[in-house]
């Protein structure tokens, strides 16, 4: 349909007149509107037309033969389809006809006098055409709405979930068939019932308690509940609903039967609980079993040790040695399993104490260096000067992780080097993060294995477990220990090129300051030193360390290069004062180089040889250091080489102590100690230094003793049954007259700072940690005797 010229949509107009000329005239008058025109030449014809189609308006001539306009109109009105169609009568007669009530009685809505004025006709037709169009549009909208409603109903009726709507009073207005299936309540029964009447009263009050008091505040709801059906079966249902946000209010919602899902969920939870319990049982069992195996195995090893000390022929010795080695190997595996199962069972506890980080690292490296050097591997340790000297942590566990990783590195490396680097990696939560990096030049690990290597029971590949043995638990344990020590671990590696394992631990620094051994040293500062080693890592680590002490460092990678460098330096008038020479180098070895230097009158350098544990000790008159190098030992050795021995402390770090040197001490001491073994040892130590010692085993006896005799000092065990050390001290102090305070030295098992505080607070003067060593005991006693009481 094309738009009418005046812009309105075209409609259909029926013209009824028996006179063709008049019909033509009307048509012509309407033509500009562009409407469709249907003509009828009689009333009968008109009736036929309205039966087949709707008209926007009917123009009806009043005077027609057979059936006149009034009669025609009456018939049109009688038909339901056309009862509302507007009719305009066209009449040529006098005005009295207008007032003829018939005109309206017959259903006319308007009239026009002939001859018809075209403008008036068009105006009237346009009004009715617009009315007709609007009515059509409304009818279409109504049909559309009905279609939507029909679709929605179809949807909710066939939905696989219960659907309902309630009114503002929460009474059911609509429920779909599935809702009835789920609840067992028919739609008719549901209508008008309160929405929660499908729950039992108990459930209802429980839900009410969960919801806000004012029902108007419930905008959304999601609730799970159980219902009993008429047949006694129960169902678990989940209802969700939302308030309808309009003035009338009410709710729409869904209801799902989740009986099956809830059952599956419960079964899963139960399965999980069972699995956890089983895993716990397994771990407990493993821990117990390991214990049970360990005990007799210790007996086997210990007794084999004893057996090995007896006279055996070589064959027997070999057998016994094999038993011992096998036992050790088995014990190591058992320990792994025990540790692992303890960690798994969450029973693993760290044993926190203060320890010297560098000494711990040196210990582990020393322990493993033998096996590395036996394979011809170079072991190099580099500890950065920023690493704290003393930290608080689990020394044993750190040793375990280091031993595992360095041990692995040595195990999987056939030639080259194993390098341990220790550095500071920032501060987190008040603790220093210390990073350990162990690099080797071994077989490496395939990329796909790197991701799982810290998981239990995984070895790089099955062939490696055949070749190298082990439980495959070592790295898993290390990883978990590191996690327990608030650290992290990882690996990077390339097949055939070696691996770098790293881990961090988070340890509060007790002595944060860099170790003294890494600070510039007056004796060494400015001294020219030549490092001669074929291993590049060793050269660079040594250079860094020596530079840190202020030395002027040059390096050479062979004895030949070293001689060239030394001769050049000597001829330029700045000869090397010290040469630090690796014993085992290809070509001319360290010993030959030493001999050459000594024999050359132009070269005055002191030679320090660095030797492996396995190399012979027949080094002649020369300073030597055993690799792996320890910082402190290296420094002492260099100072000795430079003739600065006078102020050097012995390399083992134990300061000579005047207290127990030559002349015997005099003084009378009271020892308060209930443990006979501890008492016996303390008495032995003190007596051997010349003191006269009285020993008592209780606080009460001590209080008595100090009133009966005059003592120069009291050694007081803190934890005794009955009156403890603190109380005893208080009692002694209470009896003292002003100005005569006897020195009291606490001997306690606690090494923490607060233990010390407590002793001092209780009135004691000094403090010793058990088990006492000779040196510590004598030092503290001598110190307290020197202080005027």
């Amino acid at each position, binding site marked *: 349909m094309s738009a009418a010229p005046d812009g309105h949509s075209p409609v259909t107009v029926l013209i009824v007149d028996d006179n063709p000329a008049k019909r033509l005239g009307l048509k012509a008058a309407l033509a500009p509107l562009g409407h469709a025109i249907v003509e009828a030449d009689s009333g009968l014809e008109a009736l036929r037309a309205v039966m087949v189609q709707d008209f926007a308006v009917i123009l009806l001539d009043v005077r027609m033969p057979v059936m006149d306009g009034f009669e025609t109109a009456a018939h049109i009105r009688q038909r339901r389809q056309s009862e509302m169609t507007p009719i305009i009568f066209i009449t040529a007669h006098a005005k009295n006809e207008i007032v003829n009530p018939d005109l309206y009685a017959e259903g006319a809505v308007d009239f026009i006098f002939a001859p018809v004025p075209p403008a008036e006709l068009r105006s009237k037709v346009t009004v009715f055409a617009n009315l007709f169009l609007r009515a059509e549009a409304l009818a279409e909208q109504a049909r559309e709405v009905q279609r939507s409603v029909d679709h929605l109903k179809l949807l909710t009726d066939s939905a696989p979930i219960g659907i309902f709507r309630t009114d503002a009073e929460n009474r059911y207005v609509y429920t779909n068939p599935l809702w009835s299936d789920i609840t067992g309540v028919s739609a008719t029964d549901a209508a008008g019932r309160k929405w929660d009447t499908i729950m039992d009263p108990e459930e209802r009050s429980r839900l009410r308690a969960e919801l806000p008091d004012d029902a108007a505040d419930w905008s959304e709801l999601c609730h799970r509940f159980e219902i009993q059906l008429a047949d006694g079966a129960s169902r678990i249902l989940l209802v969700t609903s939302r308030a309808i946000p309009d003035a009338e209010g009410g709710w729409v919602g869904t209801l799902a039967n989740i009986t099956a899902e809830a059952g599956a969920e419960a079964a899963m939870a139960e399965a999980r609980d069972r699995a956890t319990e089983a895993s716990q049982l397994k771990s407990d069992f493993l821990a117990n079993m390991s*214990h049970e195996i*360990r*005990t007799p195995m*210790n*007996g086997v090893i*210990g*007794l084999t*040790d*004893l057996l090995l*000390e007896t006279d055996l022929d070589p064959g027997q010795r070999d057998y016994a040695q094999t038993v011992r080695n096998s036992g050790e190997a088995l014990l190591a595996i058992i320990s792994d399993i025990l540790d692992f199962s303890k960690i798994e069972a969450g029973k693993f*506890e760290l*044993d926190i104490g203060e320890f010297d980080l560098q000494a711990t690292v040196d210990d582990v490296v020393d322990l493993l260096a033998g096996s590395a050097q036996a394979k011809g591997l170079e072991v190099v340790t580099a500890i950065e000067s920023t690493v704290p000297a003393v930290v608080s942590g689990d020394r044993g566990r750190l040793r375990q992780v280091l031993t595992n990783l360095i041990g692995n590195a040595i195990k999987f490396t056939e030639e080259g080097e194993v390098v341990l680097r220790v550095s500071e990696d920032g501060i987190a939560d008040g603790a220093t993060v210390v990073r350990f990096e162990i690099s080797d030049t071994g077989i490496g690990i395939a990329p796909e294995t790197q991701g799982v290597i810290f998981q239990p029971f995984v070895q790089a590949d099955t062939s490696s477990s055949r070749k190298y043995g082990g439980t495959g638990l070592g790295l898993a344990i290390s990883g978990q220990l590191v996690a327990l020590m608030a650290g992290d671990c990882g690996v990077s590696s390339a097949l055939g090129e070696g691996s770098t394992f790293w881990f961090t631990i988070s340890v509060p620094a007790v002595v944060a300051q860099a170790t003294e051994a890494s600070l510039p040293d007056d004796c060494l500062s400015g001294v020219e030193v030549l490092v001669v080693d074929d291993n590049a890592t060793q050269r660079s680590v040594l250079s860094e360390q020596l530079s840190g002490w202020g030395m002027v460092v040059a390096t050479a990678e062979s004895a030949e290069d070293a001689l060239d460098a030394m001769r050049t330096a000597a001829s330029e008038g700045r000869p090397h004062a010290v040469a630090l020479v690796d014993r085992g180098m290809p070509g001319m070895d360290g010993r030959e180089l030493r001999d050459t230097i000594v024999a050359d009158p132009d070269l005055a350098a002191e030679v320090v040889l660095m030797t492996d544990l396995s190399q012979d000790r027949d080094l002649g008159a020369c300073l030597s250091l055993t690799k792996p190098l320890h910082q402190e030992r290296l420094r002492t050795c260099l100072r000795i080489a430079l003739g600065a021995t006078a102020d050097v402390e012995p390399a083992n770090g134990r300061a000579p102590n005047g207290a127990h040197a030559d002349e015997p001490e005099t003084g009378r001491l009271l020892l308060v100690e*209930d*443990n*006979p*073994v*501890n008492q*016996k*040892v303390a008495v*032995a*130590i003190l007596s*051997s230094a010349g003191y006269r010692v009285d020993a008592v085993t209780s606080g009460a006896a001590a209080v008595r003793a100090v009133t009966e005799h005059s003592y120069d000092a009291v050694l007081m065990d803190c*934890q005794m*049954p009955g009156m403890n050390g603190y109380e005893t001290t208080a009692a002694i102090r209470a009896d003292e007259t002003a100005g005569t305070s006897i020195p009291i030295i606490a001997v306690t*098992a606690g090494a923490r700072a607060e233990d010390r505080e407590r002793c001092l607070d209780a009135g004691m003067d000094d403090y010793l940690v*058990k*088990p*006492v*060593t*000779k040196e510590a005991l004598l030092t503290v006693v001598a110190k307290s005797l020197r202080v005027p009481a």
Partner: protein
Amino acid sequence: MIDEAAFDELRSFGDDFLVELVGQFTEETDALLRQLRESFDAGDTTAVGRIAHNVRGSAGQLGGRALASACDRVERNAITGDPTGRAIDLRAVELEYGRLRLALAERLTFVGVAP
């Protein structure tokens, strides 16, 4: 298992002293560990803590670090009072004691006291 430095120090007081000391230690500790087990079975954690403390003291003095630290754990767990007693690992104490005795015996060729 044994702190050699501590042991060497004791050795410096002479073999007789050492034999006597070890003898006293084993005699005493044998009895204490029996009491320890009894107290534990009786649920007397106070006594468990006290005895463990006592053994810890002498073990440490003889260089038995592992035994001392096993005792220390028992002592601490006894003090914190785990009512189930599950955290109190007496077996570790007994095991470490056995090992220490063996080690001491080895050093003294004092086979008479070995288990």
